[in-house]
């Protein structure tokens, strides 16, 4: 017996969303299906449904982020929740308050959900472990561990374009070592039954345990993206680079930058993805980023629907009489 998954409630429903690890394919599919029905909301005149009216959602960001925080905020508002945005890096923790103190103070303000980003792996898990029982926690990125909503919006984008995951070849290119996005993507792709997941990176940007993740490793870009259906480019995480892992950005582009010419090795209908923000001329050419195969802006739109799905599913487990009816 494995220990119970803290993400699930006693009925097996999604209570917190901290990592893809330990979630079954059915749960991931339920998230994608629910997100599908939320996509329509953003296209209406009134871009809002009353599902989470009266709920308070706190975006607790200990690390900078614009896109992720904004899409979480938009998602919460389209569900009619009230949103508190706290950039804690610049507030009380610098005065010496502990994470637990921060949690207890916000709990006292009757917050119903925390969306948390932190530079320490396990921070969201910590919050979920200590938060009051009615509170749900969503991980918006913790250290080098996980970024499950990003992975799910990527899965959503792939499913929209390619249908089923069986039969797909997906390549993830770039800084795998520092990337919580890549870790979550690999788990999600394998859980959903993707035929082949490849990672393409220089040896210095690969974790020691890469092969145990269930991927094929390539060090040459053109060889790695040959005949793939999906190319996922990762951002070169300059702020996480300590030590000499890379000779220079210029040289990185020479070896691993995605150009139109290199993309020809992939399938003719391959799509190109990037979690953003793009370092143009480092991970990819502008021609590719703005080209017909790029679905990067769709990823942003779909990110809202996926976050609406996860928020409403987790908040739904607060239901009082769920088992009684």
């Amino acid at each position, binding site marked *: 017996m494995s220990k119970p998954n803290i993400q699930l409630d006693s009925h097996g*429903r999604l209570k917190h969303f901290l990592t893809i690890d330990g979630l079954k394919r059915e749960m991931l599919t*339920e998230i994608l*299906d*629910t997100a*599908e*029905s*939320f*996509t*329509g*909301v953003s296209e*209406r*005149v*009134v871009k*809002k*449904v*009353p*599902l989470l009216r009266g709920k308070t959602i706190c975006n607790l960001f200990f690390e900078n982020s614009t896109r992720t925080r904004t899409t979480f905020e938009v998602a919460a508002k389209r569900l009619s929740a009230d949103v508190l945005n706290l950039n804690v890096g610049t507030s009380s923790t610098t005065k010496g308050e502990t994470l637990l103190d921060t949690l207890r103070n916000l709990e006292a303000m009757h917050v119903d959900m925390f969306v948390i980003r932190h530079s320490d792996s396990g921070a969201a898990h910590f919050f979920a472990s200590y938060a009051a029982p009615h509170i749900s926690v969503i991980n918006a990125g913790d250290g080098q561990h996980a970024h499950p909503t990003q992975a799910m919006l990527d899965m959503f984008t792939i499913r929209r374009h390619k249908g089923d995951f069986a039969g797909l070849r997906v390549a993830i290119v770039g800084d795998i070592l520092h990337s919580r996005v890549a870790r979550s993507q690999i788990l999600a792709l394998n859980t959903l039954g993707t035929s082949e997941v490849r990672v393409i990176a220089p040896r210095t940007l690969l974790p020691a345990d890469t092969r145990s993740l269930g991927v094929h490793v390539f060090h040459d870009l053109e060889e790695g993206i040959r005949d793939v259906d999906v190319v996922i480019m990762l951002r070169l995480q300059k702020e996480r680079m300590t030590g000499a892992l890379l000779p220079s950005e210029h040289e990185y582009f020479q070896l691993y930058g995605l150009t139109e010419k290199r993309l020809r090795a992939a399938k003719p209908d391959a799509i190109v993805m990037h979690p953003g923000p793009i370092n143009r001329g480092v991970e990819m050419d502008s021609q590719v980023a703005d080209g017909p195969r790029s679905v990067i802006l769709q990823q942003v739109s779909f990110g809202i629907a996926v976050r609406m799905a996860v928020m*409403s*599913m987790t*908040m*739904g*487990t*607060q*239901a*009082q*009489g*769920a088992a009684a*009816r």
Partner: protein
Amino acid sequence: MNNDKIYMQAEAIDGLIGEMVQAIKTRLEVQQARDPVMIGIHTGGVWLAERLHKLLGIKQPLGTLDISFYRDDFTRIGMNPKVKPSQIPFEVEDRHIILVDDVLQTGRTIRAAMNEIFDYGRPASILLATLVERSGRELPIQPSVVGVRPPLTHEQQITLTGPDPLNLIIGTSKQETRGTS
């Protein structure tokens, strides 16, 4: 445990649908409602609406609503795992809408559906057509056109099964997952 019995079968239901078509036509004439559009509520209401839509010869494609995001019992029963996208492929503003559902009981589904419709625009009017009207209203909502009004006890549930053939089933076992109509 399961003592469901068939209340009405496809042929008889088709007869009811035929009568509903006539009744809807009369109502539209009285209201002088031109160029109506139709919206069915998932799931049973859509099956019924598909038939009515065809028989009435409505030009605009059929709209469908899943009211899961508008339910008033989300805080009690949580998210419906099988929610379908709502699709309203026409402008709602100033249109005469025929709203279709299978069973009208509490009125909460219709309340939710009307709230959702108003998030698409301000319709000129809404006409409510249900195959079954039964006791148990909890909100002041009345149908404009009804197929049948079976006398049912509080414990009895009536459900439309389909999409083909349509059958009306009466059960007395409490179904946990069933929402309120």
